[in-house]
């Protein structure tokens, strides 16, 4: 199926299996018999993209329609890109090696800000103009979905439309509608006008941000038939929703190489920093019977030996112990082990984990996020010191050998003593449990930096400055140096800064992205490829001040760049939650809101 040029290129690159496309359960259809063909473009490497559950859901929900086709494409690795450019090989889909340009629709999955340069790179490798205004009606429709669409403004000039919310609700409808419009030979403008009337579809061309001379956003005007606010679409009943039971099984090991069944969507805990906790609301549960049935089918169709019971906070699934028992019974003989990816820090969760991991007790992962009770109250991660220690105690008693702990710095109202508390808490954990495990206690601590995200109670909050991130990280580095036996790691300050710039950015950032990509930025999420020096050049050349974006505090009455995009949560709730957070702020009331 591959032509000789591709064959030649594949023989020269590392991991050629990333580009094969004939994996088990991959879908191959005759393009000529399709009403609409779409390329699902994941702006990261194959191993990352193939672990994305959204891809699997959409792949199956589109491909089960007779006259629709979806094929996959991922960001080529650096060596592959080089070969492609050298050999004039345009970006192609894996299944049929069709150039991206030949598709009706290219849909990008927007999962994290650091993949934005990959989006531009993929458009360019496809031979398409980056900017919507420079593309014609003959070019594919460029659409985006995923969490970043709750503020996609920095990407707005490059895209024709974004789907807000759960795309499996919208996409088949949109593609079928496109089939009708295609038959009528409708032009791009007409098509977009049609689509802007579909609930959950955001057509950026129909919205115009108005700035004053100081580049302060005043309001966002909507044009034509476009609604003033685009409200996200969601699946109401998970039991009726399409769920992939014959997903593509990769040849090579991917980040999450296992069967995944989603227990529920959304999370009711409302941690104030957590975008997922708000944009995926409300909580919708899948019934236990349905979960068991899906699991059975998944295992039969893939041959996987591991089943992940996924969701934002799995231990919140009611009667999870009962479900695990049912799964054990039904999957018995298939030799499948179940795993729980997101555990709460409590005794119940420890008990469950113990059940699941009989015999393989290495490390348990928990995310206290903050080390003082005050700060945990600020972010609404309401768990007391006592509860934490008693959960850890249970885990050690059950035979676990260690812990992986996740914290965050730079949270609103954080002071040095909150940062230092991370060190003392970990030292404490080490001292308490060290003698109680067989061999050395494995303790690894990972510290990220808070990034204020759109559509959360902290959307108005600034990120601390780059220098300040580095200073607080230094406190940790110094502190952990004095404690032997703890594996301490931290997220790169510069990438967290860039994340904040784009997470709260607006359309004025598009030239910055373009410049950064032109200078050679790509695969920014990979430390071996990330170059902050290049980004600094891009900032300088476009005259954009990144700190103005990352460090700005919005006032409640300000117009936010994403104000026209509605995740279904009342603004008032965000305001209330923000004020509540600050009421636990510094005792002196320095932070008066």
């Amino acid at each position, binding site marked *: 199926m591959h032509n000789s040029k591709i064959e*030649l290129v594949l*023989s020269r690159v590392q991991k*050629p299996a990333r580009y*094969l496309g004939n994996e*088990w359960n991959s879908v191959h259809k005759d393009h000529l018999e399709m009403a609409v063909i779409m390329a699902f473009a994941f702006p990261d490497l194959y191993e990352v993209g193939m672990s994305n559950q959204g891809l699997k859901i959409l792949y199956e929900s589109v491909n089960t329609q007779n006259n629709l086709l979806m094929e996959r494409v991922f960001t080529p690795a650096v060596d592959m890109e080089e070969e492609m450019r050298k050999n004039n090989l345009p970006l192609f889909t894996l299944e049929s090696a069709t150039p991206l340009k030949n598709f009706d629709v290219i849909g990008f999955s927007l999962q994290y800000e650091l993949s934005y340069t990959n989006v531009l790179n993929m458009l360019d490798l496809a031979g398409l103009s980056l900017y919507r205004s420079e593309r014609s009606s003959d070019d594919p429709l460029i659409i985006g979905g995923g969490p970043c669409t709750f503020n996609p403004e920095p990407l707005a000039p490059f895209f024709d439309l974004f789907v807000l919310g759960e795309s499996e609700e919208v996409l088949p409808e949109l593609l079928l509608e496109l089939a009708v419009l295609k038959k009528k030979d409708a032009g791009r403008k007409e098509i977009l006008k049609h689509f802007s009337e579909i609930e959950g579809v955001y057509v950026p061309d129909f919205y115009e941000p108005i700035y004053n001379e100081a580049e302060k956003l005043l309001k966002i005007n909507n044009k034509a038939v476009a609604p003033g606010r685009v409200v996200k679409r969601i699946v109401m009943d998970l039991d009726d929703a399409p769920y992939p039971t014959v997903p593509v099984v990769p*040849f090579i*090991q991917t980040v999450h190489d296992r069967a995944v069944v989603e227990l529920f969507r959304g999370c009711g805990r409302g941690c104030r920093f957590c975008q997922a906790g708000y944009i995926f609301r409300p909580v919708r549960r899948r019934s236990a019977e349905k979960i068991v049935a899906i699991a059975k089918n998944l295992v039969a169709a893939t041959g996987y030996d591991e089943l992940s019971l996924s969701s934002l906070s799995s231990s919140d699934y009611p009667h999870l112990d009962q479900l695990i028992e049912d799964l054990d019974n039904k999957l018995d003989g298939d*030799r499948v082990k179940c795993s729980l990816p997101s555990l709460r820090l409590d005794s119940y969760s420890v008990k469950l984990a113990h059940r699941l991991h009989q*015999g393989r007790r290495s490390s348990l992962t928990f995310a206290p996020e903050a080390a003082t009770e005050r700060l945990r109250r600020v972010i609404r991660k309401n768990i007391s010191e006592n509860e934490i220690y008693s959960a850890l105690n249970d885990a050690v008693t059950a035979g676990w050998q260690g812990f992986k702990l996740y914290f965050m710095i730079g949270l609103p109202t954080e002071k040095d003593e909150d940062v230092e508390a991370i060190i003392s808490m970990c030292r404490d954990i080490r001292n308490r449990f060290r003698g109680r495990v067989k061999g050395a206690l494995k303790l690894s601590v990972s510290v990220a930096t808070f990034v204020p995200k759109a559509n959360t109670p902290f959307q108005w909050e600034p990120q601390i400055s780059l220098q300040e991130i580095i200073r607080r990280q230094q406190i940790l580095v110094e502190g952990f140096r004095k404690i032997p036996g703890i594996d301490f790691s931290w997220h790169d300050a510069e990438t967290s800064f860039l994340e904040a710039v784009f997470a709260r950015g607006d359309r004025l950032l598009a030239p910055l992205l373009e410049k950064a990509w032109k200078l050679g930025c790509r695969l920014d999420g990979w430390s071996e490829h990330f170059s902050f020096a290049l980004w600094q050049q891009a900032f300088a050349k476009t005259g954009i001040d990144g700190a103005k974006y990352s460090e700005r505090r919005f006032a409640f009455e300000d117009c936010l760049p994403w104000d026209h995009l509605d995740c279904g949560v009342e603004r008032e709730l965000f305001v209330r939650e923000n004020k509540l957070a600050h009421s636990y702020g510094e005792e002196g009331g320095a932070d008066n809101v």
Partner: protein
Amino acid sequence: MYRIKFLFSRSRSLAYISHLDTLRLFIRALRRTDLPLAFSQGFNPHPRLTLALPLPLGVTASNEPGEVYFEAEVSPEQFISELLYQMPEGLQVIKAIEAEPDSPALAALVEAAMYRAELRSFEKNESLNDNLGDITEKSLEKLMQKNEIVFTKSAKKKKDSHINVRPYIIEAKRDTQTGGLVVLKLLLKAGSRGGISPVFFLEQLALESGDESLNAACWNLHRECLYYKKGDILKPLSERM
């Protein structure tokens, strides 16, 4: 415990997956069938499947032996027919037999491997190929006259070790019965008692020639057969099945 030995082939469309990927693929395919796989003991039980010799990345094959254990009796016919529907295009089981549970493991028998290396003909330009054919033959001659070809094995923590792999090249010659194509037949020692990778051989050949178009990436490599030793004679492993 029941044991099935089998032969499989691998074509171009699946040549680019590694040995571990190939093993995983077989295991997942077997798990999708209803065949009663036997598992190893221990905390992390896994199916007992082995392939006689890892297939290098990019190499196709026509007669690769492998073996797998079952808890209950499985007939070779049943094995082939059940697996048939679970194997992706490009990887195919072509033969299977029942084997004594305690006869020696296939992997321990492997002594040598026969490869066919075909230079990719680009524009079907005959004179270009003629020319490359000559260069190949000359370089091959020079390479084979050497008494020593050193392969440097770099280990992570230990010092690099140097091995003379010249004795592992049993035979290497141009196949002249192939029209205008440049084709080599390489019989190389392989297996746990020492061997040389065909890719390394081609790299040495390219170095010898100094010609970029003989680069290892420019050859299609195909493994035709694995051999075991009976007395002093090499015999195809597939004949034992």
